[in-house]
């Protein structure tokens, strides 16, 4: 019963830090560690466990506080629409800067150098466009989900069903990526926990946050996490810069000398060893930019602020925080080449190469260890873990809103449900999603986290984004156009991902891929626009006429905020 023992010692030592001065706590914990010797297991990292427990205690306290203020559906989905621009900016950053982008981009830079920067740039480039064209309009038109906005003047039943399916596809894949990352992380942090125990622990925590604390708890967990992550990444980048005497030239020169690919890491536009087509980079670029604008858990955050002005400010803050963070990950990635790849203690293969013990998502954590020992490693591991909890909470809440608000209340019950029923349905949905994410994390344990995130962005960019854009900006869109375009986007992106090289060849082992590109967006997105346009202009039904006529009222509300939810 390693699990019970680890948890027990962790809990006791956590309690002792709260109750006793820290020196005493440290003594207690080392005494406990001595009492529970484990011959085969690696040593227990007490600083990491303590910081992790402190974070868990803090977030549970937030959840307790939030639960007492969460009564109505608006409390549950939007935190009562009382979040300020700065708070929401931090929460968006906390929701968006996932463990995949922290551990993942650092790992990408560590193995592929410059190629990692393309992801950083792409993950940021959608944000200005989100501000210019979407944020304020979403706040003015929507109630709880972006699906409210799409179905504002279209036939609510069928359109909501389609958009909710698109949302859930994105959310489930994103959940897999985060839960797998969390399992791997906790597993390497606390080797006494097995992967599945770690995953169950994560699932239990996020289900608690979301079910009891709703959007209020989720928002504050995300804010705390964003501050911790920005602080942790800044400290790491600073330590790397101190190491290289504040000279990027020196840092890069050192990395070039150490990395097996040498000079090529400064200019690699594709992963080493792959034979990517130039169009792959273009398709990746489109996927990252427009995928950002189709992420349901991010779009949902715009309904939590008081008005369109706060929505606008929140994007300014989040863009700057996220941009700053990506600049740091780039420095951290090169720092990892310079300081992790030279230390045999971290390397999986004594003969050299870059492969690390504990898997390919570890460079950021080992760099923390190299820079500041156990204490800093513990802090960064706890931060990475907090990151996953915050992102998964946001996803679970968005998934619950798609199931309860869009599908249950507005499709199956035709909008005829009491507020109490809606809140109850969303809490049940959160519990179900928490359980499902545990199962998915177990099934997909060995998948590459960064790739799963890319899958998510592909579906978001091919179905959620184009239909939202057309609904907002094109008077001519009819229900038929939205349905045909939306389903074509979902089926096209998922289908071509399955036929593409990663799934068809690497995962399923079925030989050469039937579709040669990893990212289908370049082909599917224009097709979706074309089909939605064609199906709308040929739709001369009376209903389509009414939908076009209703565009004016939508325009007035989206521009002025008159009649927007308070």
């Amino acid at each position, binding site marked *: 019963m390693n699990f019970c023992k680890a948890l027990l010692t962790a809990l006791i030592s956590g309690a002792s830090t709260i109750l006793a001065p820290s020196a005493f706590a440290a003594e207690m914990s080392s005494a406990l560690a001595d009492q529970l010797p484990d011959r085969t297991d690696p040593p227990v990292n007490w600083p990491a466990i303590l910081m992790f427990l402190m974070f868990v205690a803090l977030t549970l306290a937030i959840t307790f506080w939030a639960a007492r203020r969460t009564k109505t559906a608006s409390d549950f989905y939007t935190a009562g629409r009382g979040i300020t621009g700065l708070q929401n900016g931090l929460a968006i950053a906390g929701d968006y800067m996932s463990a995949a982008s922290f551990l993942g981009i650092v790992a990408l830079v560590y193995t592929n150098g*410059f190629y990692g*920067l*393309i992801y*950083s*740039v*792409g993950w*940021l*480039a959608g*944000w*200005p*466009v989100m*501000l*210019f*064209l979407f944020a*304020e309009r979403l706040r003015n038109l929507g109630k709880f989900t972006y699906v409210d906005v799409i179905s504002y003047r279209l036939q609510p039943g069928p359109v909501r069903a389609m958009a909710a399916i698109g949302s859930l596809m994105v959310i489930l894949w994103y959940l897999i990526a985060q839960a797998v990352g969390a399992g791997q992380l906790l597993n390497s942090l606390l080797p006494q926990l097995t992967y599945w125990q770690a995953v169950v622990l994560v699932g239990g925590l996020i289900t608690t946050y979301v079910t009891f604390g709703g959007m209020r708890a989720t928002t504050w967990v995300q804010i705390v996490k964003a501050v911790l992550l920005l602080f942790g990444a800044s400290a790491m980048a600073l330590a790397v810069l101190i190491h290289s005497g504040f000279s*990027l*030239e020196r840092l*890069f*020169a050192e990395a*070039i000398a150490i990395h097996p690919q040498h*000079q090529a890491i*400064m*200019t690699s*536009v594709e992963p080493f060893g792959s034979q990517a087509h*130039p*169009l*792959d*980079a*273009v398709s*990746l*670029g489109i996927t990252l*930019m427009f995928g950002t604008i189709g992420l349901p858990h991010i779009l949902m955050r715009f309904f939590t602020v008081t008005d369109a*002005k706060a929505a*606008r*400010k929140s*994007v*300014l803050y989040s*863009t*700057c925080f996220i*941009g700053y963070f*990506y*600049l740091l990950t*780039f420095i951290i990635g090169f720092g990892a080449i310079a300081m992790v790849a030279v230390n045999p203690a971290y390397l999986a293969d004594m003969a050299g190469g870059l492969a690390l013990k504990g898997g390919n998502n570890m460079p950021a954590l080992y760099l923390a260890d190299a820079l500041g020992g156990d204490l800093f490693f513990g802090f960064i591991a706890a931060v990475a873990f907090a990151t996953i909890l915050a992102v998964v909470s946001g996803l679970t809440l968005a998934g619950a809103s798609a199931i309860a608000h869009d599908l249950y209340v507005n499709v199956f019950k035709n909008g005829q449900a009491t507020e109490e029923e809606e809140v109850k349905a969303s809490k049940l949905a959160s519990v179900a999603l928490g359980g499902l994410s545990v199962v998915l994390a177990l099934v997909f344990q060995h998948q590459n986290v960064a790739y799963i995130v890319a899958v998510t962005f592909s579906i978001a960019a091919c179905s959620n984004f184009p239909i939202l854009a057309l609904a907002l900006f094109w008077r001519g869109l009819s229900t038929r156009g939205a349905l045909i375009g939306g389903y074509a986007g979902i089926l096209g992106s998922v289908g071509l991902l399955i036929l593409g090289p990663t799934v068809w060849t690497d995962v399923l082992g079925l030989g050469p891929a039937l579709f040669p590109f990893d990212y289908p967006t370049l082909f599917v997105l224009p097709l979706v626009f074309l089909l939605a346009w064609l199906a709308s202009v040929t739709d001369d039904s009376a209903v389509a006429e009414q939908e076009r006529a209703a565009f*004016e*009222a939508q*325009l*007035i509300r989206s*521009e*002025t*905020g*008159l*009649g927007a939810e308070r």
Partner: protein
Amino acid sequence: MSQNAMNEEIRDNPKFRELVSQRNRWAWRLSLLVFIIYFGFIVLVAFASGYIAQPLSGGSVIPLGMLLGLLVIVFSCLLTGLYVYQANTEFDSLTQQVLRAVRK
């Protein structure tokens, strides 16, 4: 006033048309600028990897592409700031004028 009557009054208010055309002009032009900057970078990465691989200066190990990538990130933040400044000073006051006219 009913919602329909308010909508009709807003639609016929020249201030509303000014608001829509001004904000859209800004929003679409800035978006276009972001598309050009970002996809310009992506196209260079995809089709001109040799060009962006050249070092910044004679003795430097830093290639042009890296500087361009960092500039895309910095420009994205600056453009968001520009839009928010413009919206806070211009668009909000127009919106208030339009709303005050129907709420009187």
